[in-house]
């Protein structure tokens, strides 16, 4: 027995077609209009890479977040909505340069990134640490204490570890080049395997075997 409340809904079922084609076109034109009106506070996309799927996010100022798969991209987006702005939209166009440069990096053809970055997710000493990291050359490493010294607080070795572990823009800001003084890798936001892969990639590319 259908009730008068449910029967009309069934009767209207012809109107419930989700029409994915129309929706995808509408979504694309919305993103275009939103970009023109400067209403996308955080644009993001995902890319495939040798260290797994990466989420890239940018504000109007630059690349603000690179997130590994194991960080859970949905949670990362919720965090960006919370910390920066809920106006978060999937818009690959703002991330074209970052996508291209990361692809060149993973192919071994790029040893440094030329991208505007937005450090707003790191503050104070952490930001000072991150600002120093690009000075560590491709294929080289520094210890946590060397980085502490370079960032102006030689005794803040542990804080350097935290700054690297919470680096919002890994790979592009090369916290993977900071290792323990005994030469072991130390922790990494993307997991030890990702850190090892990046260091291996840079070693072989920087000093090709003869």
């Amino acid at each position, binding site marked *: 027995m259908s009730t008068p409340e449910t029967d009309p*809904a069934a009767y209207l079922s012809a*109107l419930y*077609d989700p*029409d994915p084609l129309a*929706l995808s076109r509408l979504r694309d034109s*919305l993103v275009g209009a939103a970009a023109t009106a400067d209403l996308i506070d955080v644009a993001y996309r995902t890319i495939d890479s040798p260290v797994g799927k990466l989420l890239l996010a940018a504000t109007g100022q630059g690349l603000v977040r690179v997130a590994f798969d194991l960080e859970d991209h949905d949670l990362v987006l*919720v965090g*960006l909505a919370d910390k920066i702005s809920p106006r978060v*939209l999937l818009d690959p166009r703002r991330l074209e340069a970052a996508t291209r440069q990361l692809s060149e990096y993973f192919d071994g053809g790029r040893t440094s990134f030329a991208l505007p970055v937005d450090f707003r997710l790191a503050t104070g000493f952490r930001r000072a640490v991150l600002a120093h990291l690009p000075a560590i050359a491709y294929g080289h490493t520094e210890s946590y204490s060397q980085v502490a010294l370079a960032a102006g607080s030689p005794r803040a070795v542990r804080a350097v570890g935290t700054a690297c572990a919470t680096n919002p823009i890994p790979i592009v800001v090369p916290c993977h080049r900071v290792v323990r003084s005994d030469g072991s890798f130390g922790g990494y936001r993307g997991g030890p395997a990702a850190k090892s892969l990046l260091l291996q990639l840079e070693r072989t590319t920087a000093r090709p075997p003869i």
Partner: protein
Amino acid sequence: MTKAPFEKLVEEHGATVLRVCRAVVGFHEAQDAWSETFLAALRAYPQLPDGANIQAWLVTIAHRKAIDITRARARAPVPVDEPPESRSTVGLPTAPDPLWADVAALPNKQRQAVAYHFLAGLPYQQVADIIGGSADAARRAAADGINSLRRNYPRTQQEAGSR
């Protein structure tokens, strides 16, 4: 309670808002109504109180945009060639079900009540908040709309009767 990324709103509510727009402004002008609704929503989203009912909020914006579009259409009618004798499906990306035209022919209140209650799933009190009047009046308008659609669309009635 923090706000979801706007992308999730489009994912979760895009289809519902499109249905509502198609019902309220007509199948073809629904695209403009949908775009304007989500653009306005994106603009206002940071100021939306946390925990607000997103679906009701979006339908309310769609309702206002539909009124704007309908008024603009009345002010500046777009000249068209001879209207087709019968409903044409040629050249349309998706052929609209003929039921859409019957919905479009309903009186305003009935069409809105059917759209917001049956297509968007809002309770009658929320429908009344959007279109004005009481929840009972919204319920009657939706019921009248459905009855009128039944009379105009016997094919569906037969299909329903044969079950």
